[in-house]
């Protein structure tokens, strides 16, 4: 007793109110605030990068959905020598249109209106819009009509405010005639050499076909392996090997799958290059581990009481799994599948390896035809020198991001709507 009091008297108690101590506490609190601010800063910086990226893409890309147009007055009765509207209705419409020579009609009209060099102001494929217009509304061939045709790419870029000096001059001359319209071509055309005529439909269709093949291969295999590994697999060396290879495949760089596709599907099996079939197979091998891993988690989450109840009333092991466990685990499996598919949809590198980088100007109509996909199309356009492609690339990126966003939103919706917490 004595000794402790003596000890206390020997030491000076900490003077919490003293200057030195207050200073020290202030310093520690300042460090605390700095650290917290640093953390917040890191988050804001990361989110800022995302915002910056999206703003750049949307800012560039929105212009890709519009096109600069010039009016052309076409005196159809004079030019065609009196074609009637009925020629362009029904079965023979396309053939009659070809004999009409729309291209020459448009070029002559342009030259009358804009002088000898007038055709240089217009996009080379612009006359196709007139053909489409005639098929759409045959009445116009009996009248004198003014149509708006896409301007040439440099003028288009300059009118949107990003062009070269010479193009700016030409824009200044035409200022009062230029107008902006929605670029329907961009949604309905395929790849082209003229940026005014390019579209994403070919690439989008290729992507959809490829994704379909990926889905019908990766989904059944993924679900069945998840069921096997969770419900049936005995614990032994062999199943360990399967498990290790699935986890390992999930971490293999995607370009390696491209090498596999090249060596096995193209060189060994002799499947056609650039085809959606090969792309889908390659992406399926890449997506399958994702589906297996998420599927196993979903199956694991189904409580054992469900299995026991089903077994108890006489269901066979297989009936328990396919009638009870699988339906209950399905929302979780689907969520994982959609996330895996979204990743496959954005994948580029493996598809470059199997030759899907060719210039393909017509949308694919089958699984073995040469095709390209949206991310590869973005990559190809990003390599183009022509400045008109900058906004098209960004516009294609907007479309791709919209698809990914929709898929992820669907996955989140499924998770919230159907997933049961036991």
């Amino acid at each position, binding site marked *: 007793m004595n000794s402790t009091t003596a000890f206390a008297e020997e030491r000076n108690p900490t003077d919490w109110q003293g200057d030195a101590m207050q200073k020290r506490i202030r310093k520690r609190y300042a460090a*605390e605030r700095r650290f*917290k601010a640093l953390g917040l800063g890191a988050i804001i910086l*990361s989110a800022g990068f995302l915002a910056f990226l999206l703003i750049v*893409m949307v800012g560039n890309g929105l212009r890709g959905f519009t096109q600069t147009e010039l009016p052309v007055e076409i005196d159809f009765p004079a030019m065609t020598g009196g074609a009637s509207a009925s020629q362009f209705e029904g079965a023979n419409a396309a053939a009659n249109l070809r004999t009409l020579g729309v291209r020459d009609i448009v070029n002559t009209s342009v030259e009358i209106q804009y002088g000898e060099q007038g055709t240089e102001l217009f996009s080379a494929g612009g006359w196709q819009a007139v053909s489409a217009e005639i098929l759409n509304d045959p009445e116009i061939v009996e009248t004198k009509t003014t149509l708006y045709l896409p301007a040439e790419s440099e003028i288009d870029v300059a009118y949107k405010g990003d062009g070269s000096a010479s193009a700016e001059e030409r824009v200044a001359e035409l200022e009062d005639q230029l107008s902006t319209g929605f670029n329907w071509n961009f949604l309905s055309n395929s790849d082209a050499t003229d940026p005014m005529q390019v579209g994403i439909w070919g690439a989008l269709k290729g992507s959809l076909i490829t994704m379909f093949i990926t889905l019908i291969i990766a989904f059944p295999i993924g679900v069945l392996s998840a069921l096997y590994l969770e419900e049936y697999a005995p614990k032994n060396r062999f199943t360990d090997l399967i498990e290790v290879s699935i986890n390992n495949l999930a971490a*293999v760089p995607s370009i*390696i*799958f491209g*090498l596999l596709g090249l060596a096995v599907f193209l060189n060994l099996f002799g499947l056609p290059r650039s085809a959606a079939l090969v792309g889908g197979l390659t992406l399926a091998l890449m997506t399958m581990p994702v589906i297996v891993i998420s599927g196993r988690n979903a199956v694991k989450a189904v409580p054992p009481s469900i299995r026991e109840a089903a077994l108890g009333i006489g269901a*066979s092991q297989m009936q328990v799994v396919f009638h009870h466990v699988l339906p209950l685990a399905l929302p979780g499996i689907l969520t994982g599948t959609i996330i895996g598919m979204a990743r496959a949809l954005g994948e580029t590198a493996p598809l470059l390896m199997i030759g899907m980088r060719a210039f393909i100007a017509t949308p694919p109509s089958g699984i073995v035809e040469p095709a390209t996909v949206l991310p590869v199309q973005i990559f190809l356009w990003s390599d183009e020198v022509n400045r008109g492609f900058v906004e098209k690339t960004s516009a294609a990126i907007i479309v791709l991001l919209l698809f990914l966003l929709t898929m992820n939103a669907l996955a989140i919706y499924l998770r919230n709507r159907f997933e049961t917490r036991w």
Partner: protein
Amino acid sequence: MTGSILFLLIIVLGGIAWFFGRVKANRFAANSTKRGEVHSLPNYHGWYVALWAIGPALLFLIIWNIASPALITDAALTSPAAEQLPQDPFARGAILAEARSIASGQQVQAFNPLSTSMVEPYKTAISYYRTIGMVAAVLLVFACGVFAWLRLKPELRARTKIERITMMTLLFASLIATITTVGIFASLIFESARFFSMVSPIDFLFGTEWNPKAVAGPRGETGFGAIPLFWGTVFIGAIIAMIVAIPLGLMSAIYLTQYAAPSFRAWMKPILEVLAGVPTVVYGYFAALTVAPALRDFAVSIGISSASSESALAAGVVMGIMIIPFVSSMADDSIAAVPSAMRDGSLAMGATKSETIKKVLIPAALPGVVGGVLLAVSRAIGETMIVVMAAGLAANMTANPFSSVTTVTTQIVQLLTGDQEFDSPKTLAAFALGLVLFIVTLLLNLIALRVVKKYREAYE
């Protein structure tokens, strides 16, 4: 196209077989007098008949598709036009291959006039064997289906048989992952072996000059020294990207787990995860279009005139941004795994939150964080599109972040696009690079998983 119609036909016939099997089994069930006389439900009888009808026919078609090209070639060679063919096996093979692809509609025009003469015999042979195959497959469907239908009786253990087949299907499905792994390994090793028979592995792994375009002859190649590529990969993926990703990812994770209000966390976590969901080709375009020119202008303004528009820095920074959510979620997990007693103890001693984090949580979570960083590095070095679009092709060995370097993945893409001849070391080098990449990422993953696992066990 006829192939898929045949396939659909077989599936439809299978459906009909299922129906008939079911009808017959339903009749047993209706006639049965005591419980348990019919072993399986009618559905299983239906599946039994359907699988019998479809299975052998599909198996036959697969074998037929593998075997028939040889038969077709033999038949075509017996035609009179084949007598003009040259004796040299290579020229002969080329002509036959060309004729076959014209006959099957893959190619329109022949380069060699001799192949045009072979087209007709090929066409007749192809249609002859195709008809045989189709007729045989359909007959097989009927024969096997009727056989199975006749075998249906009340005591047939249809369910057990179906379940055994389902079990085999499950096992086979889970084997596909293993087959794929083996396939990757085998194809990489096989093509790399061919490459190393032309270029010495020592030259490849330790050479310092990378210039595959300059290589001319089939022997005595130089210019396959991959050290500059390895350096470029490490420089971009493991150094620059990590300098960006580790501080940002780690600090984000710390703020979100330790400081942020739940509502802020609920919003920011998905937003950060969006960064991981953006396709890499978008990052690549962003790096090439926006980041790289900005960095070059900056470098020129501070007096580095040699700055390249395809700089290692641009690719590395953008790659780092892509990796942030990855590092952040790994750090999140490992901090959450630290027992709360350690944290509470430190706070009870009067340490501030940041002191607790710096002196207690981070050291305790370090193995997990290191494991996460290793995984992030393995992902960064395998990343392709960003470096292809932003990093350039010049194989420089430089530590200057403003100059251009090239990486393993860029070179794989570069070597395999454009004209491919499958015997040239130029094309095969891509597989050797792929093998190195595969082994390195595999090792990094194994080490990282082991570190994370060991560390988890330490606290359990």
